[in-house]
Each structure stands twice: as structure tokens, then as C-alpha cells.
């Protein structure tokens, strides 16, 4: 990519900037590149390939019943009310752990997910695709896309809670 960019700009430093801007731009907001069809094509090609390499197409049916709950059942009482409610960490998550550590924890949690779940969460929440695009790229129904998104996001929240609850940040 750097070499390609170098063909069009005067210096290596500028080329590096171009590559970085491209990554950020593409991954942040596909809509901003609307009209630059080649870039959109490129992104979709990457997405489809990523989907293939994570094995999404091999097993499309999703077992809805056997999923772990979003939150451990032991944290609710018999009536379904919180017995061990969530601690507050939203306000100071970044001050306590730092952006880089938070990103690392999220990344680790993503890597531990089943492939389809990871693909949905990554495409939606990292790459910023909407649900229609994700369904198209991964050949999923809207309902299954939501199930996978729910499981994945719930798992990420649990991962953050594991390092942020308790006040020690440990």
C-alpha cells in the first residue's frame, strides 16, 4: 500500500499519511466514501474475503437455544431482578485503564469469539457497516445477524466488566 501511495505523492512521509488516512477512513465510515466506487469495491472485497477466511459461509444455521446468557444467571434472583447488579465503570473506564489497554482487551475478546460472531461484531462495530450490508456480505438473515451481534456485544461487555469492575482495574 505504501508503495502504491508513493506513486502519487512526493514523499514517503506523505505516503504514510495517505495510507493511514485510508485505513481510518475506510474502517470508520464507508458512507464518507460514497461515490468513490473503487474504494467501496475494495472494502467489500476485503469484507467478503474476511468473511470467507473466518468460515462464515460454511455453517450458516445458528443454534439459538444453546447460547450462554448475556449475563450469568447467578447474578439475578428468583424473580429475575439483579442480585449482583453491574458496577459503574462507564464514566472512568478510560482514565483507569487507558485507551490502549481497553483496545487490547476488546481485541482479545474478539479473538476468542466463534468466527461468525466475530465477523458480525467486527463488521458492524469496527468497520461501521449497517445491518443490511452485514447480512449481504455474510449471507445472514436479519434475525440471525441480531442474535450474533447480541452475543458478541454481550461478550465484549463482560470482558470489559471483568477488567473494570471491582475498582482495581486489574
Amino acid at each position, binding site marked *: 500500500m505504501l508503495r502504491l501511495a508513493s506513486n502519487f505523492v512526493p514523499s514517503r512521509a506523505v505516503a504514510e499519511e495517505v495510507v493511514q488516512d485510508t*485505513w481510518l477512513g475506510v474502517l470508520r465510515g464507508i458512507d464518507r466514501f460514497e461515490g468513490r466506487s473503487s474504494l467501496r469495491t475494495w472494502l467489500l472485497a476485503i469484507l467478503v474475503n*474476511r468473511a470467507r477466511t473466518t468460515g462464515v459461509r460454511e455453517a450458516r444455521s445458528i443454534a439459538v437455544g444453546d447460547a450462554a446468557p448475556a449475563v450469568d444467571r447467578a447474578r439475578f434472583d428468583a424473580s*429475575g431482578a439483579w442480585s449482583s447488579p453491574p458496577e459503574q465503570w*462507564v464514566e472512568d473506564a478510560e482514565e483507569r485503564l487507558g485507551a490502549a489497554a481497553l*483496545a487490547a482487551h*476488546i*481485541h482479545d475478546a474478539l479473538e476468542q469469539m466463534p468466527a461468525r460472531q466475530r465477523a458480525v461484531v467486527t463488521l458492524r462495530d*469496527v468497520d461501521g457497516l449497517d445491518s443490511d450490508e452485514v447480512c449481504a456480505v455474510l449471507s445472514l438473515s436479519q434475525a440471525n445477524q441480531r442474535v450474533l*451481534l447480541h452475543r458478541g456485544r454481550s461478550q*465484549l461487555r463482560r470482558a470489559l466488566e471483568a477488567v473494570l469492575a471491582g475498582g482495581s482495574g486489574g
Partner: protein
Amino acid sequence: MMLLRRRAIACQEVVELVSDYLEGALTAGERRRFERHLAGCPHCTEYLAQMRETIALTGRLVPEDFSPQMRAEFAELFRRWRDEAVEPL
């Protein structure tokens, strides 16, 4: 608590409905019950805030956060795509 509302939802259900809520996939009735529960439940309000924060933090991942292998794959894909795109010229 004195009056039984029609099928009030429990916290344990809220945490399973939260994604459908954020996706706008609840029916109007479900959405009303969900929001009514939130209005009276600080714990579930906190839970919803944590889900929103989780999504926001995930959205800040940039390619540098991905493994060298994944970046290499992207670079390779780009090269292949570029070569295909350039060929006709």
C-alpha cells in the same frame, strides 16, 4: 410494585433484549415495556450504558489493533484487488 402491570419485564429479560432495543427491532409494545423498566431500574440503565460504551470503545479499534497477520492479509487483498483493477489499462 403495588399494581401488576401487563407482563412487566424482569432485569434478566432486559439484558437479553438490549441489542434488539438498540437495533430498533422491538415492537412498539416491547419497546414501551423496556423503557418503562429502565425508567424505574438504575441497574438496567447502567447496563444499557455499559453496552453503549462497549460499542463505542469497539468502534475505536483501528487497524493497528489487529494482528500483523491480519494486516498482511489486508495488504495482500489490496494488492490483488489493485492488480485486477489495473489490468484492463
